[in-house]
């Protein structure tokens, strides 16, 4: 067979030898070592799932030949000091099980990218990490020089809750060392801050900095076993914190009653002993009605109130501040005063001659009449008769009474709040009311009682080195909450923000008032996003950085339960992904502050936990590295953990302040019900938009994470969002199940299919949040629930530095109509 000597192109023989670019050798293949490839046996790792939910489950991860093949629940150890504190079952849910699909998703961002088209056009080119980090460093420096150091906003959020990578993580260290602003943890992005603000009002000095509110001091969930009645209030833990439902069921086996208060008949409501569909946004009125009954029927705990609360303290009728001894007696002390029932005089509360302080009553002094704080409360609550409360809340009067009887008549009584209460403009007031009611009945600091938002979050007990981790050499970041940052981007107030770096944060989709957020992000000079999939936020970036999933980096999880879960690197990072810690280190190096990122993850963990330090806090004393990395050990705390068990409160008075002086300017010194800012039938806007729009959290995702995983999508209507609507409301609009509907208000609109269900109160509609709206993946037909929501801030919260604002997602009115197509 004769053939011409062939070449593809003359002069291009054998890899362009002629060009001096000779056979460059192999780039992606190398010689196998002599012994050949030996298949590895199965290895099992224990790690914690640091995702954005209360579960904080421990995972046993099976790895064969470098690939993860299975994930299941892992076991738990004793307390650090060896005491067997409690039984804690292995726990996992459908989302944890699906993490294999997440880590090996074909949608993983593999490399750094740089935007090449207009922002949001989705045009990117691949670049190296070196190029990416140089670009970030240069642009940050340029912008900081021109607009001020705080004009760069570092924005981590709750996508991960572990120490180094998560919402309390290295982001703050980085922001501190470059002097940038940073979004604070548990800020207002998700509307979670209303509850903590209220804890600050009543149980702490609200003006004290670095104060975590009720987020870090909830009852350990196993304490629910000690409750005689459990109120799951605006909480759907059967979907959002599934393994803790087991504890609720165990409690029920002991006779505990379970009450669910929710405008929707959720799986939690379906499993409860009583379901109360409250009109959304009116829970404070219901609580006020319950309190009124408790006060009128003298079902309060007098001894508790006298000893641990401001109840007996007299209030100045003119200033409305607490009456002080110096107001009565020239040269008197700055001390609270009470009325002694025995000798019928007003005296200092710490007067040794005090026999019995009056709880209720109004007493004369200098021609004026001063009421006790308890009397002020009682007077304010007095209008909330069952009928009055019923009119506001749509809860029947006899049910208002019944709930009060259940709460006051069963001791201890536990209240577990969900963020269903917090996503309201007046969410702070609702929590204030709950705390007040818990105080009335002696349920704060009591086993089986309490008002719990979250349990054990972030373990401020254990992370004694956290301050140094965040603020090396005393450097501090400038706090800027996500909602305020939006205004800073758009209006330059309080100062301009011209650049941002998001990580574990899907701000462009999950933040309220999406149209405003998109405008803000598009106005930035420079936007960096770290993520592991091309989220709606990453799509807008100038630089996209590939992030690791939890299996690919070392970290420590200590949140939502009282166990420390070391997270080893289970597999090598896929593609060119890097941990956020590594990414910060690379940029810091180029910005001249690389010395702050020299340590390894294990070293930072040791520092924060003060391992080996005899002065480590008692909760972690004695913890060795070997112990930490060998299993999940519980803090040396009594089990179950009950906050405020010592009844010591960091308030000005040292007591529970259900009368809050600092809220006087906002007319909120006691928890008198106030209307929602928007979603009230008394709002004239209601004529145009008569439906309350909820966007709740579904079991098939964790907010916007895992929304595209096949195992979860295929059992969730193939990932397609829908609007839950009561048949009454649907029929009035000619809507049947499956029809495409348009949901709209003055801020924006969206389209999905309707699903008629009796599981929702008429006048209320719901579209699950967390679905994606990116150029390639749309889980809603058009638009997104956050097109409808707003960013109206509650000024009362401004008195709490850590929680000055709140995104009231549910305080929202819409209209729904059938759409074509």
């Amino acid at each position, binding site marked *: 067979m004769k053939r011409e000597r062939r070449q593809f192109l003359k002069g291009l023989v054998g890899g362009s030898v002629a060009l001096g670019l000779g056979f460059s050798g192999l780039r992606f293949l190398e010689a*196998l070592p002599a012994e050949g490839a030996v298949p590895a046996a199965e290895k099992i790792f224990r790690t914690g799932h640091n995702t954005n939910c209360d579960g904080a489950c421990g995972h046993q991860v099976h790895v064969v030949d470098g690939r993860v093949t299975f994930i299941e629940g892992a076991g738990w150890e004793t307390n650090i000091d060896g005491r067997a504190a409690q039984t804690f079952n292995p726990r996992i849910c459908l989302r944890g099980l699906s993490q294999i699909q997440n880590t090996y998703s074909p949608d993983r961002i593999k490399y750094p990218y740089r935007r090449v088209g207009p922002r949001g056009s989705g045009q*990117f080119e691949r670049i190296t990490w070196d190029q990416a980090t140089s670009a970030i460093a240069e642009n940050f420096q340029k912008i900081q020089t021109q607009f001020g150091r705080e004009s760069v906003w570092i924005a981590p959020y709750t996508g991960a809750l572990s120490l180094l990578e998560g919402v309390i993580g290295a982001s703050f260290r980085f922001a501190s060392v470059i002097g940038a602003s940073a979004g604070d943890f548990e800020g207002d992005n998700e509307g979670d801050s209303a509850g903590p603000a209220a804890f600050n009002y009543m149980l702490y000095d609200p003006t004290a900095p670095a104060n975590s509110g009720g987020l870090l001091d909830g009852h350990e969930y196993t304490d629910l076993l000690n409750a005689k009645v459990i109120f799951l209030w605006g909480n759907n833990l059967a979907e959002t914190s599934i393994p803790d439902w087991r504890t609720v069921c165990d409690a029920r086996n002991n006779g505990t009653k379970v009450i669910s208060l929710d405008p929707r008949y959720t799986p939690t409501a379906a499993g409860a002993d009583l379901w109360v569909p409250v009109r959304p946004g009116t829970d404070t009125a219901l609580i006020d009605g319950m309190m009124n009954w408790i006060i009128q029927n003298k079902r309060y705990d007098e001894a508790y109130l006298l000893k641990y609360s401001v109840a007996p303290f007299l209030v100045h009728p003119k200033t409305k501040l607490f009456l002080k001894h110096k107001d009565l007696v020239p040269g008197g002390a700055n001390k609270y005063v009470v009325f002694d029932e025995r000798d019928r005089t007003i005296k200092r509360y710490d007067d040794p001659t005090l026999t019995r302080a009056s709880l209720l009553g109004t007493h004369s002094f200098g021609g004026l009449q001063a009421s006790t704080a308890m009397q002020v409360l009682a007077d304010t609550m007095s209008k909330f008769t069952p009928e009055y409360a019923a009119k506001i809340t749509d809860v029947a009067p006899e049910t208002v009474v019944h709930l009060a009887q259940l709460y006051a008549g069963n001791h201890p009584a536990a209240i577990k709040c969900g963020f269903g209460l917090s996503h309201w403009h007046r969410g702070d007031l609702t929590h204030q009311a709950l705390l007040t009611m818990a105080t009335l009945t002696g349920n704060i600091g009591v086993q089986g009682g309490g008002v719990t938002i979250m349990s054990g979050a972030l373990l401020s007990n254990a992370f004694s080195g956290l301050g140094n981790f965040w603020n090396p050499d005393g450097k501090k970041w400038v706090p800027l909450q996500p909602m305020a940052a939006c205004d800073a981007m758009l209006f330059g107030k309080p100062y301009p923000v011209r650049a941002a770096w998001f990580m574990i944060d899907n701000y462009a989709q999950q933040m309220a008032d999406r149209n405003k957020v998109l405008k803000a992000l598009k106005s930035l000079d420079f936007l960096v996003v770290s993520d592991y999939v091309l989220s709606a936020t990453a799509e807008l970036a100038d630089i996209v950085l590939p992030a690791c999933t939890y299996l690919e980096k070392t970290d420590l999880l200590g949140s939502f339960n009282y166990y420390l879960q070391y997270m080893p690197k289970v597999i090598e990072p896929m593609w060119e992904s890097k941990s956020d810690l590594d990414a910060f280190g690379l940029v810091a190096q180029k910005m001249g502050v690389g010395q702050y990122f020299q340590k390894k993850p294990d070293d930072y963990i040791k520092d924060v936990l003060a391992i080996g330090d005899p002065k480590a806090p008692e909760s972690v004393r004695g913890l060795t590295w070997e112990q930490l990395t060998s299993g999940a050990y519980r803090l040396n705390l009594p089990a179950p953990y009950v906050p405020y068990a010592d009844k010591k409160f960091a308030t000005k008075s040292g007591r529970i302040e259900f009368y809050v002086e600092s809220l006087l300017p906002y007319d909120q010194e006691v928890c008198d019900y106030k209307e929602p800012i928007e979603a009230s039938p008394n709002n004239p806007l209601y004529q145009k938009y008569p439906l309350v729009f909820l966007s709740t959290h579904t079991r098939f995702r964790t907010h916007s994470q895992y929304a595209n995983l096949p195992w979860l999508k295929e059992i969730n209507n193939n990932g397609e969002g829908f609007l839950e609507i009561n048949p009454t409301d649907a029929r009035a609009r000619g809507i049947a199940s499956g029809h495409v509907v348009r949901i709209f208000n003055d801020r924006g609109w969206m389209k999905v299919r309707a699903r008629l269900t009796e599981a929702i109160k008429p006048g209320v509609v719901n579209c699950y949040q967390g679905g994606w709206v990116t150029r390639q993946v749309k889980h809603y037909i058009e638009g997104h629930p956050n097109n409808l929501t707003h960013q109206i801030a509650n000024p009362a919260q401004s008195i709490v530095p850590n929680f000055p604002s709140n995104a009231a997602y549910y305080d929202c009115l819409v209209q729904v109509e059938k759409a074509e197509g």
Partner: protein
Amino acid sequence: MQSESTRAAGDILAYRYSVYDLLRRIFLWEVPLEFFAELVKASQAELAGETCSSSAEGPLKNYLNGLPPDDLSEIHREIHIEYTRLFIGPKHLPAPPYESVYRSPGRLMMQDETINVRSLYAKHGFRVTRMNREPDDTVGIELEFMCALSKASLDALQEGDTRRVVEFVSAQREFCELHLSKWMPEFCGDIIGNSTHPFWKSVAEFTQRFLEEDAAEMNAVLEQLGRSCKDGDPNPKLSVGCCS
């Protein structure tokens, strides 16, 4: 003295080596601007204004021929951007360059096919440099494997070691039959169907046609050398046209 058949085989092997090298560079995008410029220059020098009529090489050569030789940086950049869009990301890929995605419609990587490819590499003394971080069955790596074996076969031929030439070419044929032929046609089809860029379309057409021809070439070479190999053809012939 080289026999006629040996020389013919040498020509085929040299050609195949140059093509696999070129293709692996293109699909791995190891194509800096200078190299691209030389490619264009060489193509234009060769064709000298004529059109190439070969059905496999033609589209690509004609495309290169039509480019302005002095101002290629913008074009080069556009080709790179399209490369990223087609094969890299960050969005959903129109032509995911992984065998495992095409072998089962789940469109996911790191599958069992990946491990099969890994075993085949190992059988011939290779492994990927980024184990478990880049799939073994990425198109560029599979082509690099073919390129490495091509070079090895050419070296063996030049050393007169016919047995080893047969060994390497047989390995290539096995790899083509078990792997490349099972997905490359569809992959190239996806490029052609999803790209409007003439460079990538012509590369895909070339690749597709070249692989078809190469199946026959490998059989031809083995047949040639089988006649000159003392022990006869050590490998039974696999089915012809395995790449179709």
